[in-house]
């Protein structure tokens, strides 16, 4: 089997990348999806709030996905669902299998990685105590409730104020469960402001910041009690324990890009994002392999996933076109985008300046809550650009436009992006 472009993953990232690539002349395109339907995790996100940026209206998750699935009609894109990719080699052979076609080796001219992410588990944060039933990651509980149609408990505590946890606080309340509290280790919430208001405040669900779960008790092998303590930094403070009588604990303690396949293909991984290192066109360290969406870095909004994935789709089409015409011209070595003060990561991590038309869009996250802050872009000691922001939150991804002329001013040096606390006049 042979395709010009193979897209791994049929969630929002894979769908947008495949459609945009096809539109831009990518040739034969195949989407491989491991679940039974296209749409990815959006299928279980039945609340609304998706699409405000891309479609200028509020859609539910399934509706948002359906817009892209509908566009596949007559687009000439092949789709394999219920199909698992087992391995990707650096020479872009994709090994996959399904019940119908069996074991397949698919040769690809280019690959877009769009496998999404998985949830961090109890083990990842080593919560001590009993190991009864009743402890779920928020996404697994969401699947049981919204897809399978079964409730997972009656009295609930949620650890982690990430968006899925907040959404599930509301969802379980609406299904008749009693959500006793949301507990957050950090001194700030990790969810979008609007979700705090609409999912917690509207239902009088308390949010305990700087708290964590320190023990778990069970009765007859089902969760019966969760002990929560205040923390100093990450250390629980003795004497601050609170007991919650609950039968269910939901964990919303972070998402991890699923890059096991990327690693098998030899793709360089950025330890800060746990996703691939990419350049301005979303190409990874392996020639012709691109990455986008939550497999690259965890996004807050699906709209941003769509934008990023369309960029990857266009780049994959351009890559295939250049390969066909044999017009791959020599380019200079890329410069790196480095993290300065308070910046946790940037995507992309590399830029080939001569390839940039007018500007690049840099996405980044800050490591602390910053009010009246300044974003400073430097090359060595030279300040290239500053931008003021009223507020920056770790929970909300920041976007920065770097015009070509600023990139040129770096004159081949790496660029450092920092977020400083005061609205300072940086000279």
């Amino acid at each position, binding site marked *: 089997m042979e395709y010009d472009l193979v897209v791994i993953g049929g969630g929002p990232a894979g769908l947008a990348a495949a459609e945009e690539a096809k539109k831009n002349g990518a040739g034969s395109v195949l989407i491989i999806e*491991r679940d039974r339907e296209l749409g990815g995790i959006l299928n279980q996100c039945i609340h609304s709030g998706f699409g405000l940026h891309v479609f200028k209206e509020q859609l539910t998750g399934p509706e948002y996905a359906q817009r892209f699935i509908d566009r596949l009609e007559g687009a000439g894109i092949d789709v394999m669902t*219920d199909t*698992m990719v*087992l391995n990707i080699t650096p020479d872009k052979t994709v090994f996959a*299998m*399904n*019940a*119908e*076609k*069996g*074991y397949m080796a698919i040769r690809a001219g280019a690959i877009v990685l769009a496998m999404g992410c*998985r*949830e961090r*588990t*109890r*083990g*990842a944060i*080593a919560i*001590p*105590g*009993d*190991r*009864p*039933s009743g402890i779920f*990651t928020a*996404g*697994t509980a969401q*699947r*049981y*409730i919204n*897809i*399978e*149609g*079964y*409730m*997972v*408990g*009656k009295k609930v505590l949620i650890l982690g104020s990430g968006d899925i946890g907040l959404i599930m606080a509301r969802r379980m309340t*609406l*299904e*008749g*469960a009693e959500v006793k509290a949301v507990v957050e280790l950090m001194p700030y919430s990790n969810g979008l402001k609007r979700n705090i208001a609409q999912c917690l405040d509207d239902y009088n669900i308390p949010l305990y910041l700087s708290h964590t779960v*320190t*023990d*778990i*008790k069970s009765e*007859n*092998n*089902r969760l019966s009690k969760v002990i929560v303590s205040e923390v100093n930094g990450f250390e*629980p403070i003795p004497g601050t324990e609170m007991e919650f009588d609950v039968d269910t604990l939901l964990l919303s303690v972070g998402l991890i890009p699923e890059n096991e396949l990327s690693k098998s293909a030899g793709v360089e991984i950025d330890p800060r994002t746990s996703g691939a290192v990419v350049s301005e066109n979303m190409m990874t360290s392996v020639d012709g392999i691109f990455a986008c969406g939550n497999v690259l870095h965890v996004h807050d909004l699906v709209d941003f996933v769509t934008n990023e994935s369309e960029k990857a789709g266009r780049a994959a089409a351009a890559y295939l076109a250049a390969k066909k015409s044999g017009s791959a011209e020599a380019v200079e070595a890329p410069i790196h985008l480095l993290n300065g003060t308070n910046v946790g990561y940037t995507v992309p991590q590399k830029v080939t300046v001569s390839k940039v038309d007018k500007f690049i869009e840099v996405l980044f996250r800050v490591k602390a809550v910053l009010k009246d802050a300044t974003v400073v872009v430097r090359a060595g000691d030279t300040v290239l650009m500053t931008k003021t922001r009223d507020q920056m939150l770790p929970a909300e991804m920041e976007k920065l436009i770097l015009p070509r002329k600023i990139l040129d001013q770096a004159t081949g040096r790496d660029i450092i992006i920092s977020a400083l606390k005061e609205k300072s006049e940086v000279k």
Partner: protein
Amino acid sequence: MAYDVAIIGAGIIGCSLARELSRYDKKVALIEKENDVAMGTTRANSAIIHAGYDPEPGTLMAKYNVEGNRLAGELAAELNIPFERCGSFVLAFSEEDMKTVRTLYDRGVQSGVPGMEILDGEKVREMEPNLSPEVVGALWAPTAGIVNPWEFALLLAQNAVLNGVDLLLEHEVSGIEKEKDGFVLHFTDKEDVRAKYLVNAAGVESDEIAAMAGDDSFSIDASKGQYYLLDKSQGALFHHVLFQCPGPLGKGILVSPTVHGNLIVGPDANPGSARDSVATDRRGLEHVVKESRRTSAAINFRENIRNFAGIRAQPSTGDFIVGPSESTPHLYNIAGIKSPGLSAAPAIAADAAAYLVKQLGAKKKADLAIFRRAPMFKNLPEEEKAALIKENPAYGRVICRCETITEGEIVDALHAPITPRTLDAIKRRCNAGMGRCQGGFCGPRVLEIISRELGIKPEEVLLDRNGSYILTEKTNKGGDR
């Protein structure tokens, strides 16, 4: 029901003995209070087949360990139990430790452990490059290995059942009555069972069972040990079992790859623990992390996927208790089976079976059916994968993404001897849910398959032990209340 032999406890000991006895023409019951086999110490330990240099020569522990190590290799090959004879190091960090290493070496020689060598730090790091530079030398024992302990017990139990042993799950013994020719066993909520011979393999509760039968010659202390189980990214760091030299501060923390490719780190030791709790605690877990750093600073504990704890049965006598009871005729105790119990089990079972066979005048059956673990689909060559999917499309459907486990394998497990009824029972049989997402993605699908194949409601599918329900009720009821 009446049996020639009733074995109480379906851990590695009970399962090994049941399998041995199933070769003979006698009626045997394997009795277990939980809803599956291997639910106690057998499923929560270091998963090591020890070489046998550690126990004092002349003890039952030394004798059965060395012999059991050899037999484990044979059983693993016969039943396709995941087992790897990768060898072990006892790491020394000082000259004082090197003295201990030499003592262990001498013990091993006396007990008949083959192939041991004392190596210097440089040689050890050559074989394990990620070890701490503080390692000055080690005892190398090539016969040590790693095994999947619960599958070890499960395969033995499945073979026993296939050859006529009755497995009585969810049978909690509440009383034992002595009769002229044996015993009557009473249960909390099941019919009585009569047996001519009673084997007490009840693990941490074996002193209670012995006392019920009139033997109070020993007592058991529960010692809890806690572990980390890390992602395969960390399992790739090491290739052998790595013990720390035992010292005045304890037995040290073990670091070892598992047969699944993960990394296991632990245990701490908590004598005097409750018998019925395998809860972990923060202090113990922190101790494990800290002490493991002596072996290697390379382990990334952010890659942890699960913590667990297991209970060891520490006998008041200091050694394994194996043999006919001195006070109660027809009672055979196999008690206090702490480390190296997993390694010793096949040898203990052989001795116990020989005794019972002689007492009962049992005869070998003409032929024995053998149930082997099916090879994991993901490890098959490409042509075999393709052929299997053609034969049964369910092998083409991957249910567990992290471990690449197919629907075909899960369905096979559900229809093998000893029906798994819980998510964890499926995990123990075919690894679905054992990976880095810990069943987050595959849990709902495995639940659906169990419900479908066994014809039970989704709400009836449990996570693990009885009582561990997952789902409460159908949705769309919230608005009515």
